[in-house]
């Protein structure tokens, strides 16, 4: 369907941005795929339901039925894990202790705004912990398909949908490349193999600046 990277490859590229010792919160969906990436950094995964230090998702038959991550998957715990209640879990989030949150989103603007909780025309929405994470994490990474199913751009000059937080996104990973919001444009830091800069520009709803040291994403 889409050109460029597969979903797991997008997550792989983003996971390589994680630095040793970081506390990382992964949202539901594509973000959790970042935990599948083999990286040699020592990451502490936090999930909004109060799990500090979760490990891989367990296979069927080996689940701990009392333990899920933010996406409801039966995860494991790494040695040194700790459990807290919901108010303490969001105390960790709001006090700025999450080094990065990775969120799956609907759209992102070059001013760093993004939207992921309410679709057009909906009566209500699904915020979950995204607004707290977006407002308070040290960095907000977003991961998404570059275009909607009917080919409309999701990297925009301004968000059309109600925003989750303003001006917070620091890194964007899509099937076409790795981007940074620069205010009035997106900076294309890395490009997916087999994709041209023109293709990226055509698929993006705001100006795209190409990094002087533009590299091709190395897939794992």
């Amino acid at each position, binding site marked *: 369907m889409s050109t460029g990277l597969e979903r797991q490859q997008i997550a792989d590229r983003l996971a390589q941005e994680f630095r040793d010792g970081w506390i990382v919160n992964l949202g539901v969906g594509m973000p959790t795929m970042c935990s599948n990436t083999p990286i040699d950094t020592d990451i502490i995964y936090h999930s909004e339901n109060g799990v500090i230090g979760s490990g891989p998702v367990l296979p069927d038959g080996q*689940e701990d039925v*009392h333990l*899920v991550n933010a996406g409801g998957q039966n995860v494991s715990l790494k040695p040194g894990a700790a459990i807290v209640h*919901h108010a303490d879990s969001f105390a960790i989030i709001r006090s700025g202790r999450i080094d990065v949150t990775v969120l799956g989103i609907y759209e992102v603007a070059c001013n760093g705004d993004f939207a992921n909780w309410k679709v057009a025309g909906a009566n209500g929405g*699904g915020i979950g*912990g995204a*607004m*707290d994470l977006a407002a308070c994490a040290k960095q907000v990474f977003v991961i998404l398909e570059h275009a909607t199913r009917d080919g409309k751009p999701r990297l925009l000059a301004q968000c059309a949908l*109600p925003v989750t937080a303003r001006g917070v996104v620091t890194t964007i990973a899509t099937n076409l490349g790795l981007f940074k919001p620069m205010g009035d444009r997106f900076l294309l830091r890395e490009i997916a193999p087999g994709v041209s800069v023109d293709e990226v520009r055509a698929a993006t709803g705001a100006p795209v600046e190409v990094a002087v040291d533009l590299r091709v994403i190395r897939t794992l």
Partner: protein
Amino acid sequence: MARRSKIFDSFAEAVADIPDGSSIAFGGFAYPGVPFNLIRALLDQGAKGLTCITNGTGGAAADRMPDIGMLVENGQVAKVIAAFTAPTRASDRIPLTKFVDEGKVVAELVPQGTLAERLRAAGAGIPAFFTPTAVGTELAAGRETRRFGGREYLLEYAMPVDVAFLRAWKADSSGNLLFRRSQRNFNPIMAMAAKLVIVEVEEDFVEPGAIDPDEVHTSGIFVQRMVKIPPPPEGLWPGRRPERVLKS
């Protein structure tokens, strides 16, 4: 003088006197810690005009356990306060949507951390607090904000509730509770926010003193009623392997 026991024989008895118009907080995140048995009892009990405080209302999954969506479908709910009032995937449908669209149920959407903190504030005697969450969004439109240290924050209010429904792993007869793993989630703070706390408990009750005071997650001073969950099929056990829940 011996006080009345906190241990009730049935879920029906434990929820019998909940009046119409009550506000009820439901513990749980995904399925761990969800008081399925108490929800089922409340469906049977039939109280109406309820305000339900919950992370989400459920009903998107195929294998459906008793959930807030069923209370909605049963005509028992006037208002829902939740972090999810519509599905996140456009392709999902949840029962709540139809009732909100038809104006039969009011839905108040609250960010999850704000929901947790509002419950905690109610249980801590704090009537209002400021949070950075939701500033600059539609949820903050027209509401009071204030700058502290150069950053803008939103004023939020405590959310006291009449009743909390919890699910715990272990309990002693005085009401001290242990939650296992991510079962803890909203349960301890909902216990703090409520006037009446009713708990479904997975393991057999132990005597006071059997739980180390340093390990208690929710003190018995917050807990008024408890019911032991019977084995399946009579009792509701989430997940695939309740036998492991009982033994772990």
